[in-house]
C-alpha cells in the first residue's frame, strides 16, 4: 500500500500502538508546511530547530490528538506554540543576560519612506521584512505574539487563544492594544522620515 492511501489519522493510530517508525511518514507529509509556518515566526537560522521541536512535541502529545479534526491543523497549532515558546525562551535569556537584542536598537536600513516601490520586487520585500522584524522586536513579548497570530497569520480569536493558552477576551484586548502600538510605532517612524532632508 502506498503512503498516500493511508490517512494521517490511521498513521497516528499505528504510532500510538507502538509503531514509532510510522511517524516518519507524518514528518514527510507535513515538514514543508511546518517549515513554512515556522519561517514566518522565527529567525531563519532557527527554523530547523523549532520545526524539530514541533515534531517532537507533537509526538509526545499524540494522546491528545482528536481524529475528528485534521492532523494538519493540530500540527500547525503545535508549530505556532513552539514558535511562541521560542520567543518566550529568548526573552528569558535576554532578561538573564540583560543584553539588549541587536534587532531592537538597530533602525531598519529601509525605514518608512525608504521602501521605494520603484526598487526591485526582491529588494522591496527584503526591506519590508527588515522593517517588520524591527517593529516586532520593539513590541512587548505578548503583543508580539498576539499580533503575529491574529493580525499577520490571521488566526481566529478562538484559535489564537488555543495557541497561547489565553482566554478569548484576553486575546481580543491584547490584539487590539498590540495593533495600536504597532500603528503608533509606524506613524512615529514615518514622521521621523518625513522630517529628514
Amino acid at each position: 500500500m502506498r503512503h498516500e492511501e493511508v490517512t494521517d489519522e490511521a498513521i497516528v493510530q499505528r504510532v500510538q500502538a507502538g509503531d514509532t517508525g510510522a511517524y516518519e511518514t507524518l514528518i514527510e507529509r507535513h515538514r514543508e508546511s511546518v517549515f513554512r509556518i515556522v519561517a514566518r515566526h522565527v529567525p531563519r537560522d532557527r527554523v530547523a530547530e523549532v520545526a524539530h521541536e514541533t515534531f517532537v512535541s507533537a509526538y509526545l502529545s499524540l494522546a491528545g490528538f482528536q481524529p475528528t479534526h485534521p492532523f494538519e491543523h493540530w500540527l500547525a497549532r503545535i508549530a505556532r506554540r513552539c514558535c511562541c515558546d521560542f520567543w518566550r525562551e529568548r526573552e528569558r535569556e535576554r532578561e538573564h543576560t540583560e543584553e539588549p537584542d541587536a534587532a531592537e536598537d538597530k533602525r531598519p536600513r529601509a525605514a518608512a519612506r525608504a521602501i521605494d516601490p520603484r526598487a526591485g520586487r526582491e529588494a522591496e520585500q527584503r526591506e519590508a521584512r527588515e522593517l517588520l522584524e524591527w517593529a516586532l522586536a520593539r513590541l512587548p513579548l505578548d503583543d508580539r505574539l498576539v499580533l503575529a497570530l491574529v493580525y499577520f497569520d490571521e488566526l481566529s480569536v478562538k484559535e489564537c487563544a488555543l495557541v497561547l493558552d489565553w482566554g478569548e477576551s484576553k486575546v481580543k484586548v491584547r490584539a487590539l492594544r498590540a495593533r495600536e502600538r504597532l500603528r503608533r510605532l509606524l506613524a512615529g517612524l514615518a514622521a521621523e522620515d518625513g522630517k529628514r532632508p
Partner: protein
Amino acid sequence: MNEQSPSDDLEARLKEAWRQAPRAPVPAAWQAGVMRTIHVRARLSAVDPRLRFLHRTIWRGAAAAAAVALFAAGFALRGGTSAETELLRLLALDPQALFELVLVF
C-alpha cells in the same frame, strides 16, 4: 475620501512581507535527526511508568516524614515527658531514621 495614511501603507507592506517570508529549505539530515529524538523519547516513555512510581513514592515519603517531624517537634516542645514523647523527639532530631520508618510503613 478613502486615502491611506503613510502608516496604513506601511502596515499593508508589513502584512505582505509576513506572507512572503522567504522559504527555509529542509536541511538534508534534518528528518533523520527528528526520528532519532523520537526513538529516544519512545524508549524513555517505555520506562516511564516505573520511574514515575519511584518519583511519587520518594516525594510522598519525604512529605509524610516532614509532616511527622513537624508534629513530633510540636509535641516535644509542649514539654511532654512520656516515653512516646521522647521517641518522637529523637525521631524529629534524626530525619533519616524518620524517613526510613515512613518507608517501612
